[in-house]
């Protein structure tokens, strides 16, 4: 494995989004993963609709919360195509699901894999490089006050409550860290990213790791 790796360097990661006053982090991480895997396959990076997932993934609660795996199960089972963001723009509130015909252009999720990598973060590095950016859940209670740097302490792994996208890692310094894209805008953290120490399952980053296959 390379000592440092970031899917942003392959132009396979969308820009940092801002979920605003909507608890739709789970949809942002799912759609971010799909965008990246789509771009990884050689297609141009395109922004897909988070609002479609929020409105239509009926087993989740829209802006009141949801789960990565439930959203991906819905996409896989219904074979709903994810349309472009421009066709179904973000409103930061739950709305009525807009349906598109099956012939409408969009991205189809073929499958996904969700695993617990706690104690196996080196294997998780390999899967990140092979499969693409990974949608993960974390305990983000202490993220309220984060400004930047590598999060190494004060981040328990007891209760997952937030969903984000792991885009890379860096093991070249004294403290190896995961590179994680958040959905709280670019003014938060390191231009919208948080760095999390590797190896100790800090924030529970390895507890529930999901990869998408298109």
């Amino acid at each position, binding site marked *: 494995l390379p000592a440092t790796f970031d899917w942003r360097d392959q132009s396979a990661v969308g820009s940092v989004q801002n979920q605003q006053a909507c608890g739709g982090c789970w949809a942002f991480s799912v759609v971010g993963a799909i965008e990246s895997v789509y771009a990884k396959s050689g297609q141009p990076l395109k922004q897909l609709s988070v609002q479609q997932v929020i409105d239509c993934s009926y087993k989740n609660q829209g802006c009141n919360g949801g789960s990565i795996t439930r959203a991906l199960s819905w996409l896989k089972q219904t074979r709903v195509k994810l349309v472009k963001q421009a066709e179904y723009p973000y409103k930061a509130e739950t709305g009525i699901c807009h349906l598109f015909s099956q012939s409408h252009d969009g991205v189809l999720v073929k499958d996904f894999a969700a*695993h617990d990598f706690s104690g196996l973060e080196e294997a998780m590095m390999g899967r990140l490089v092979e499969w693409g950016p990974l949608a993960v859940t974390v305990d983000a209670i202490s993220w309220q006050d984060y400004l930047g740097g590598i999060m190494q*302490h004060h981040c328990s792994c007891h209760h997952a409550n937030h969903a984000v996208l792991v885009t890379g890692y860096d093991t070249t310094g004294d403290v190896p860290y995961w590179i994680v894209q958040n959905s709280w805008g670019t003014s938060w953290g390191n231009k919208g990213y948080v760095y999390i120490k590797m190896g100790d399952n800090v924030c529970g980053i390895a507890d529930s790791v999901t990869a998408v296959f298109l």
Partner: protein
Amino acid sequence: SFRKQFHRNYKLHSDCYHRRRSYFKNSIKRHAYLNSLSTDKDSAKYGINQFSDLSINEFRDLYLTATAETVPPYSGLKTEG
């Protein structure tokens, strides 16, 4: 300064202002505690950001809304399909 930077429009000395000021003060205390234990060069830094006038409960209710399903341990075997 905070209100200007983060475009808060609650008026000075209103109920809302006092409540937000109280949450802001609590966040300053949290920053001092968190930074006192993060002394390494590369360690995370904690301080004032757009969430500093939210209570912990407000922050949790608004932004920490994801749930995680129990997933199997990674075995190294291919599971696609």
